[in-house]
């Protein structure tokens, strides 16, 4: 019964273009009319999926509609992200975008069927995960300076593991190699787990690993943490300096995770989502949940997200070019 006058208002708004404010508020009031599909471009159980499910559940409670996580993994996250880019822009399809889907894939793949900036409406970041440079304990270096000196003394002799060609773990190390002017050979593995195992077993000497994957081993003393990639030290490892403070100012590598809607999603809906998601990510309980997963809660505005993407596309684009990475 209640929807009837609203529908009338909606029609009136569409017909009389002069009255713009009316349909806008109406859309925001009725939204969401059905369950929301949250596309996660990675398989269930991975770190992106976990954050998406944590936030998605809370978002569903706030909006009064269920948020259904739809895992569309594959091809480095490009399959799911493309589906999200082409979805109906009515606020009922959202996606969890990350540094991988919205910066690295577009920079590293020869062809990606979406434009991270033009095809999406960024809403807000919710979390970010730091990267930690760890060494096998047998490596004779206790800090970043010694590690760089060691690598310089034997160019092309040392190896580092990554979670795969074109992964953030590779790009972080390539960025450091460029900044420090050292030659360490890249050995790609199939994911964070195998890369961690290879470093634990001493098959390779170093890994710029994702915090949740390597932190337990660093805490157990089985891997030696020498630097974090973020601009600030991690509360989990307060004694480990950042790469930036170890002699490479401006160095910053982290994996951010944020919400995106397809381009053309109505403004009032985006505003509503931005408010709710910011509340969720700033909630103390949620922040504690993030921290358990090795991430920390962060929020920003759509404009800031666009700037972030543009800066990072340029930054990682250079690394990709310098390292000669091209995924086809």
């Amino acid at each position, binding site marked *: 019964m209640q929807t009837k006058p609203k529908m009338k208002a909606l029609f009136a708004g569409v017909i009389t273009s002069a009255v713009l404010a009316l349909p806008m508020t109406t859309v925001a009031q009725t939204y969401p009319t059905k369950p929301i599909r949250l596309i996660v471009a990675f*398989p*269930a*159980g*991975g*770190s992106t*999926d*976990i954050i998406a*499910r*944590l936030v998605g*559940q809370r978002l569903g409670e706030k909006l009064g509609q269920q948020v259904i*996580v*739809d*895992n*569309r*993994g*594959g*091809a*480095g996250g*490009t*399959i799911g992200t*493309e589906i999200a880019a082409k979805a109906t822009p009515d606020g009922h399809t959202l996606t969890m975008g990350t540094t991988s889907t919205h910066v690295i894939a577009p920079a*590293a793949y020869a062809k990606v*069927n979406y434009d991270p900036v033009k095809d999406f409406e960024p809403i807000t970041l919710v979390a970010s995960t730091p990267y930690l440079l760890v060494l096998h304990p047998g490596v004779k270096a206790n800090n970043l300076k010694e590690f760089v000196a060691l690598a310089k003394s034997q160019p092309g002799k040392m*190896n580092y593991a990554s979670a*795969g*060609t*074109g992964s953030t773990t590779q790009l972080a190390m390539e960025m450091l190699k460029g900044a420090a002017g050292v030659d360490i*050979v890249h*050995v*790609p*593995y*199939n*994911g964070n*787990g*195998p890369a*961690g*195992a*290879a470093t*634990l*077993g001493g*098959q*390779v000497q170093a890994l710029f690993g994702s915090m*949740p*994957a390597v*932190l*337990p*081993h660093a*805490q*157990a003393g*089985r891997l030696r943490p020498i630097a974090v990639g973020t601009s600030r030290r991690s509360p989990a490892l307060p004694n480990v300096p950042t790469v930036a403070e170890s002699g490479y100012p401006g160095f910053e590598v982290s994996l951010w995770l944020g919400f995106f809607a397809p381009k053309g999603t109505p403004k009032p809906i985006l505003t509503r989502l931005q408010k709710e998601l910011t509340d969720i990510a700033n909630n103390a309980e949620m922040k504690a*949940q993030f921290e*358990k*997963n*090795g991430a920390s809660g962060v929020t920003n505005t759509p404009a800031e997200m666009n700037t972030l993407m543009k800066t990072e596309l340029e930054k990682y684009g250079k690394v990709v070019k310098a390292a000669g*990475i*091209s*995924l*086809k």
Partner: protein
Amino acid sequence: MEADIISNLALGFSTAVSPVNLFYCFIGVLVGTLIGVLPGIGPVAAVAMLLPLTFNLDAVGAIIMLSGIYYGTQYGGSTTAILVNLPGESASVVTCMDGYAMARQGRAGPALAIAAIGSFFAGTVGTILVALLGPPLAEIALKFGAPEYFSLMVMALIAAAVLAHGSMLKTICMIVLGLLVGIVGTDVNSGMSRFTFGASGLADGLSFVVVAMGLFGFAEILSNLQDKADTASRDILNQKITGLMPTVTDMKAAFGAIVRGTAIGAFFGTLPGGGPTISAFSAYAVEKKLAKDPSRFGKGAIEGVAAPESANNAAVQCAFITTLTLGIPHGATMALLLGALTIQGIAPGPQVMTQRPDLFWGLIASMWIGNAMLVILNLPLVGLWIKLLKVPYRFLFPAIMVFMAIGVYSVNNLDLDIYMTILFGILGYIFLKLKCEPAPLILAFVLGPLMEENLRRALLISRGDPTVFITRPISAAFLVATALLLTFMIIPSFRKKREEAVADSEAL
């Protein structure tokens, strides 16, 4: 040390035996079995689908229930392998060979029962191993670098040739074809796409479910449809169903196979990557080599079911070793279990054992309880599953096809996968007509990419020096074993035996 283990296990059992956790374990095993018997829905899809159910449980309950689902689906997968030639995951491909042959002879009951009994035995041994030797075994697993993995895969592939009962040439062709099919997808080293024809759905390669459902399930249905004599043979099949339980002779024959299979599974299962699959194939190959009359294999030898099923389950148990002690998942299902832990706010890794002993030992205790529940649940169900075979084909086939399509789709949510399954189904039908066996193809398809990846990684780390494969002792040992295996195949007496076997199969 022993006292520690006993007190630890006591803690574990006191955690797992709480009514709530027993309930979660039971629900997990039951739901897992029910989902597992749906063709095409393997452990990965089942655990992924049911993962959200556990979000509101406490950590111990969640992980116990998910493990239950895991064993349940695994066992359910063997059930479909035996009854309708549909392997739920790569390890049960081997079970198909003799299990389905037994079912066709009206001996599905003993096959299902021996699979359950073998799995339970292996599960018990596996649980004890995890409890006693978990951490030291994990250390050994870490010694496995790229060269070791490569040499291991070579050995497994050579052993695959032993699997076949037909022409050696055809077997080699199928292995090579499997390697080629395995190449499809993105190359880990260079990031280049191979044979994807621009389809992003192929970027991560073909999924095992697609290839196995096509080559086994779909092809089987196609060949049954063209078989005019089908109705007659089915009547015979129905009449011939005699005992539901294995006879004393069956048990005697299977006992050795179960013990050997368990040992093989426990060894390979500890190594991350390809554990259950290599175990099942190797256990089968070993039984065939030891058998007085190898020609029985592929035609319903009960050892051919007992060995791979035990090996598979032992490997599954031992896969928990590196997952729990190092936080390194074995495969997609283990990665999901780790994800479930992370959602509960527990960082998987070496500290779980000391920080959450209730969880670690509770899970180990629940492994055994879960395996026991599987037997209790499934032995009575054997009769019910057999009845499924009496469902007329005109109902059974469309139902299987629908479930297969759902199962295949559920893996990656890609419709392309369904079309690829049809393509492999047609291919499988052609192979059936040409008497080319799909099992070696599947093994090569699963191992090929791992083998290539590790070969290139080993050479990358050694800077192109191939001697690394013989200077590292574990790798050298595998290569020596491979050489011995090859010699056995080539020496005349063996060749003669093979020829007899070939003559046998052609006479049929």
